């Protein structure tokens, strides 16, 4: 098991290397640089900035320097945020995104699981189509609609919760962003679990168990949940990586200093080092969660262990 885990993690290194390499050269291939804008810089000033950030070196040299620094854990200086290192920016934003993302993930699993299970076990009754339609709405409405509506209702109209901001001593700051992040995931998880449970309960071995008189509660808790949660776990790999690295929409609407906006803003501002840092982090999390998903698959389905 340990050697399997080590092999899997080591195989991630070339993946991340390719990811960094592609991102490095794709970003440089995009027209425009960090200093282009409505206001042009005097040529000598631009040249000084180019020198300061070592952009005057040949591209291959910059690439090798970047890899060399990366090996020492240095992601370089940000172009957009003067005087900040990328490691600092990510280090400051990551705990915020992790706190929000993990709370949203927990809420999604809890509510999505309950809704999905209720819908599956009450299949064909009035509550099933009701929950199906509610979750369909949850999947369909994007965050940029849900988030402002939540602010309008709970902050502006009712005044129960803050409209935005992030303070360490104000846990209420988390409530609306977590709900906005979790709502689409609740809907996804509920739908996946419902369908998974219905499919599992329709398998011959579980129908036989049912026919032999095993109560539905025991059938689900002992047997059916294992195959039923497999699609949910597949979805959770990338979904967890997405939730934990933040959402640009939710962060902008609620004024949250998380990681999500770096993915978008850094690319738009040609903040090469910040883009690379964000991509590297996201890539690592994807690899990590996919690995966890594989482990969970193996634990839940013995047929997959030898594979």
């Amino acid at each position: 098991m340990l050697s399997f885990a080590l092999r899997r993690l080591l195989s991630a290194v070339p993946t991340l290397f390719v990811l960094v390499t592609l991102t490095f050269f794709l970003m440089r291939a995009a027209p425009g640089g960090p200093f282009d804008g409505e206001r042009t810089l005097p040529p000598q000033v631009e040249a000084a900035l180019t020198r300061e950030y070592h952009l005057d070196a040949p591209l291959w040299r910059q690439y090798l320097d970047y890899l060399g620094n990366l090996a020492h854990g240095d992601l370089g200086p940000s172009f957009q945020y003067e005087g900040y290192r990328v490691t600092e920016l990510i280090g400051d934003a990551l705990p915020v995104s992790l706190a929000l993302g993990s709370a949203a993930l927990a809420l999604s699993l809890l509510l999505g699981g309950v809704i999905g299970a209720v819908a599956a076990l009450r299949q064909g009754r009035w509550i099933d189509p009701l929950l199906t339609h509610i979750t369909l709405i949850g999947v369909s409405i994007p965050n940029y609609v849900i988030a402002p509506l939540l602010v309008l209702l709970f902050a502006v109209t009712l005044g129960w919760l803050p409209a935005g901001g992030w303070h360490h001593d104000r846990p209420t700051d988390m409530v609306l962003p977590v709900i906005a992040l979790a709502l689409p995931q609740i809907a996804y998880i509920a739908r996946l679990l419902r369908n998974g449970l219905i499919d599992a309960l329709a398998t011959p071995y579980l129908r036989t168990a049912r026919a032999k008189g095993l109560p539905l509660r025991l059938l689900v808790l002992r047997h059916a949940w294992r195959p039923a949660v497999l699609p949910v776990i597949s979805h959770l790999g990338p979904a967890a990586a997405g939730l934990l690295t933040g959402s640009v929409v939710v962060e902008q609407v609620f004024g949250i200093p998380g990681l999500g906006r770096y993915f978008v803003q850094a690319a738009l501002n040609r903040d090469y080092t910040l883009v690379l840092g964000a991509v590297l982090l996201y890539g690592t999390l994807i690899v990590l969660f996919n690995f966890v998903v594989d482990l969970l698959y193996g634990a839940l389905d013995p047929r997959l262990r030898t594979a």
Partner: protein
Amino acid sequence: MLVLCPLTAQAGTLLRIGNGPEPESLDPQRMSSVSALNIARDLYEGLTRIGADGEIEPAAAWGWQIADGGRRYTFDLRPNLRWSNGAALTAQDFVAALRRVVDPATGAPYAQLFAPIVNAAAITAGHASPDTLAVWALGPSRLQILLKQPAPYFLGLLAHPASFPIYLPALAQYGRAFARPGRLVSNGAYRLEAWRVESQVALQRNRQYWDDAHTQIDRVQYVAGDDVAAQLQRYRAGELDVTSEVPLVQAPRIRADEGSELHVAAYLGSYFYGINMQRAPLGDHLALRRALAMAIDRELIVDKVMNGLALPAYGWVPPGVSGYQAQLPDWARWPYARRLAEAQRLLADAGYSAAHPLQVEIRYNTHDDHKRIATVIAAMWKQRLGVQATLVNEENKVFFVHRRLGLTQIFRAAWIGDFDDALSFLDVLRAGNGRNDEHWHDTAYDALLQRASSQSDPAARAALLEAAERRALAAQPFIPIYWYVSKHLVKPRVHGWRDNLLDVHYSKDLGVDG
């Protein structure tokens, strides 16, 4: 008791300002965004400042003399100026700041702003050492600056954050990262307390500030956020006292619900379409450029697209600039129907018709408002002139590169003046100005600007600048669309807020209730 009273009354007062995008730096010589400049005016103080109504006032300098026909400025600093850590602030600190800003090694976006100072342009171009800048400390409290030519706007430049002093020991110790909490030492009414990137910059009043007795607000929070709609929600929820702007689409409701809190005022900014003069047929056909300019119904755009939060523009220099008469093309005063008829005639005379329509391209950078305006203008040209306009949307950086390389035909552009003078706009069209993406070169225009810059009589200088603008308007290498306005929501609890052309507001001039 007399001393304690004001302090007791001020205890704990907080002003929360929605400040738009995250400031890129708090180093006054390295910043360029409006959001960073706003914070810098609270953190630092220059020799002069912009008064509440836009006039120049003494700041760190209590007075000055101007000699040699407007070329030699001598400033006297206030006695006992101190940095926020208690260290003495001297004339040499102001000298160092000006040398630093023109030094190309600093990488200052506003290096060229101080080109009127003797040797500044040569230093920025890398031909001279920063030590040769004609700025001298004549003692700890006296400073002299020599200009190449008289520049009546020069006192205004010294109110610009790019000229503000920085605490050199902190720069020496921390390098580029000196402008951070715990390191930044400043000389303004406030000092840096905390900075959470993409969240807020928190300031605390600076007890070492020479005029601290008149500072009313103890703490100021500059809240970052480029989502204007989200900022409005936070304002409505009572979490912000001032917004950086208001969303256009919500303007009617804001007027109805919060009309008394809405501050809309003329602003030193222009939204226009540039025309690439290197590209045919528009580049070599004045009649075509003029026809396109005439056919735009600016009042309709301002009314329906901008929801009244702009002013129709016909000239290049915005109205309200000090000592300057705004210029307009002759046709700007005609009724729209007459303009349209003339535009149709010009196009027909140039050989364009329904069977042979003029085809143009409007290129704009990604933004909903740019898209809406381009769509409306293309429709106006299509319906009223038969011109076929193709709309091309580009990502910001790609757009600016293409503009600079001359790969555009008609392109969206904007210019915000850095100081209250017509030259802040007219210089943009000068041959050799890096921003002249119209690639318009007119020797007579450049000569008028040159003559104006050597003119010490304000009226004669204004006349030359006005003549230059008329020349640019006649050549039409651009199509003015609207003037920006400043548009803030300000809570009734905030007092002392005064609108001005540069949209400059110092927190030390404001007060808050409760």
